[in-house]
């Protein structure tokens, strides 16, 4: 079944940033169409609209038989649209068969499940598409590939004709990916319409018939794959930009940095088939900002957890000031002078229901008590001081969750900076910040590094990395593929390395 999308727009929040901007696409029956784009290009929003979980502000889409009522999951399901999610919903306590048929069980009479019928139907599909899954085994024993297969099995059981695969290879090994591609080809032969979401260009060119590039909510190009070159697509995804100037940066470029402070030596970690790090070697000196970038799911989160002491590496060592800190937990790292500003600020960075003052004194409340009783006046005085130094809004007694994202980030950062750390590990610092708070934050980080503090900046935002870092390392598929001085790099090179197209160190 073919799918026609016309003029779909969607803004978050209403009237705000356009996640989808007048998107029109024609998808043919029996083709695999790739939709590629950077994080935040609007791919997910578009797919959620197709699935009916997000209502578009304007525009419509239709299959060849009938228009689809937007914003209703049931409507999209009836039209035969289905998505294989990156992390499919499932029930671990049920068997595979039960997961597949839940909600649409064949029955004998009105009350009984017709298990034989269900099994027969599902097994026929399994045979047709070579989906190997033991229907009797509990879902809790499946790996991520099998869980995706289970969702696909459900969609085929429901006879969906338009299948969306949301970054299906993000959590697959090379072998698993090959398997998946063979199946996609089989589905294409059956006349299914397939949408393949990915930012791995190699695969896209390997498997897809057509490619559509999305950036900032717009479809920039939609052509047959053999009319396009990978370089061309990469350039479109990243956007051709003039070399940006760095207004926030006050430190001199190419300066020699102080003595080596922190070092990762052959660090490796294996969490699952898809989440791993291999042989990470990095070091950072006093007053240096080391930017570590990459597309999410390539190991950034894992590296953050390891450096923050939340998990310990399976291989390799971490050294700080000449001491082995591979087995040190967060509290010990803090005592040694390492501060941590997490990416997941709301859960890890603050206590959401506590006040601004309480969040600010979390690290140094010991200086504000008399015989175990906190002194409100000294807390208030200190909080006011910090709030005016870092221009943080709000009354000290206000719950912190009333603050904006930018102010919450300032609370966390000021709390960490007041500890006068030697090293700050800061991850995705400008997530959820508007343009001005972002610039202010960058200036603060620049000043801090200027005072001799080492900063490990983990960010998937290329512009942020480029404007702040002295040296840049790029993670791809769990390994560092590129590491150079910032002055030797440009935006395109980093973008290509993030996609696995360029290496060098």
């Amino acid at each position, binding site marked *: 079944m073919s799918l026609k999308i016309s003029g779909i727009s969607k803004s978050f929040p209403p009237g705000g940033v356009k996640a989808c901007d007048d998107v029109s696409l024609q998808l043919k029956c029996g083709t695999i169409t790739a939709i590629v784009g950077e994080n935040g290009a609007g791919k997910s929003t578009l797919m959620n609209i197709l699935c009916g979980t997000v209502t578009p502000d304007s525009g419509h889409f239709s299959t060849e038989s009938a228009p689809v009522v937007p914003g209703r*999951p*049931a409507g999209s*399901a009836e039209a035969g649209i289905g998505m294989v999610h990156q992390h499919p*919903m*499932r*029930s*671990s*306590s*049920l068997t595979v068969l*039960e997961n597949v048929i*839940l*909600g*649409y*069980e064949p*029955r004998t009479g009105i*009350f*009984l*499940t017709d*298990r034989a019928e269900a099994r027969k139907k599902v097994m026929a599909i399994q045979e047709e598409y070579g989906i190997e899954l033991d229907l009797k085994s509990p879902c809790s024993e499946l790996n991520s590939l099998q869980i995706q297969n289970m969702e696909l099995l459900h969609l085929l059981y429901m006879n969906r004709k338009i299948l969306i695969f949301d970054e299906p290879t993000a959590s697959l090994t090379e072998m698993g990916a090959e398997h998946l591609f063979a199946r996609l080809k089989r589905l294409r032969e059956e006349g299914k319409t397939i949408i393949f979401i990915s930012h791995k260009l190699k695969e896209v060119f390997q498997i897809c018939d057509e490619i559509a590039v999305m950036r900032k909510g717009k479809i920039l190009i939609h052509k047959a794959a053999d009319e396009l070159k990978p370089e061309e697509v990469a350039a479109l995804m990243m956007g051709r930009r003039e070399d940006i100037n760095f207004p926030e940066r006050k430190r001199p470029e190419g300066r020699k940095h102080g003595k080596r402070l922190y070092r990762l030596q052959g660090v490796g970690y294996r969490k699952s088939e898809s989440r791993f790090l291999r042989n990470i070697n990095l070091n950072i000196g006093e007053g240096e900002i080391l930017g570590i970038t990459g597309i999410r799911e390539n190991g950034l989160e894992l590296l953050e957890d390891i450096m923050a002491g939340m998990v310990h590496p399976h291989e390799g060592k971490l050294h700080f000031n000449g001491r082995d800190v591979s087995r040190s937990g967060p509290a010990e790292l803090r005592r040694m002078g390492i501060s941590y500003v997490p990416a997941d600020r709301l859960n890890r960075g603050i206590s959401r229901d506590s006040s601004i003052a309480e969040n600010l004194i979390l690290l140094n409340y010991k200086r504000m008590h008399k015989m175990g009783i906190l002194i409100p006046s000294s807390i208030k005085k200190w909080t006011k001081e910090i709030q005016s130094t870092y221009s943080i809004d709000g009354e000290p007694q206000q719950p912190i969750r009333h603050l904006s994202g930018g102010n919450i980030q300032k609370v966390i950062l000021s709390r960490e900076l007041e500890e006068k750390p030697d090293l700050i590990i800061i991850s995705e610092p400008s997530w959820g910040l508007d343009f001005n708070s972002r610039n202010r934050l960058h200036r603060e980080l620049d000043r801090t590094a200027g005072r001799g503090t080492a900063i490990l900046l983990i960010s998937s935002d290329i512009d942020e990395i480029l404007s702040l870092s002295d040296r840049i390392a790029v993670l791809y598929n769990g390994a560092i593929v590129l590491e150079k001085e910032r002055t030797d790099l440009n935006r395109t090179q980093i973008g290509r390395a993030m996609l696995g197209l360029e290496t060098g160190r």
Partner: protein
Amino acid sequence: MIGKALIFMVPLLIAAMGGLITELAGVLNIALEGMILAGAFAAVVAVDLTGSLAAGFLAAMTASGLMAVLFSVTSLRLKGNIFVTGLAINLITPPLIAMVSKLLYGSGGVIRLSSGTLNLSQAESLLWLLFFTGAIWFVLRYTPLGLRIRTAGTDPDFLFSRGIKPAGIQSLVIILSGILCGISGAMISLKLGVFIPGISAGKGWIALVAVYLGFKKPFPVLLSCFIFAIAESLSDAAQGIIEIPANLILSFPYFMTITGLVLFSIAKKRKQ
């Protein structure tokens, strides 16, 4: 003694099955106790008025079912905290009974039936035990409803994504548990031929413990109910023989409950 325990455990097991299905659907059902009491009272009143045992059971199922409707509306529809609403059911039932009893009989106390008590033989008891356990096991395992009950508890969002409202399943299951508690309560009071305030004597709580102790599976729950029933009949038998204060002997089943809970949590920790 085992025979006595069998007769004794029928109401306990039926309530436990009600607790089991709600627990599986993700509802902390602490209202079992109150619903049993409501059933016990309604049964005695109905038998007193009509003289028919069937009417007694029907009235008990209706009364407890209505309490369950109240419980489900307040906790699911009105989104009250389920612990508070469940506790409210337990707290509101005794005074409600006292009020109705005062209106009907002029006293809020004991109601004695002149005729029409329920006599269960050991064989009949065994049959009922197996019937209720087997029926619940069958529904959970072999019907779409059972599948949905199990998913409502562990993965409600997943169930919702398949077009089924978890809250709908949960209220259905709460009402079912109310009906089961009605049967349970009717059995308790009609067997004795009398209603005494507080006659449920913690059966609802013990049933809930039996659910956890039986790893939320029907037949293991049957087994843990049996252990509690043995404990209860042991304390009955010991009253005349051993020279221990009667109160201490009567507390034996509750002591067993606490021991059971501790053993359960130890076993669970070991498993992890």
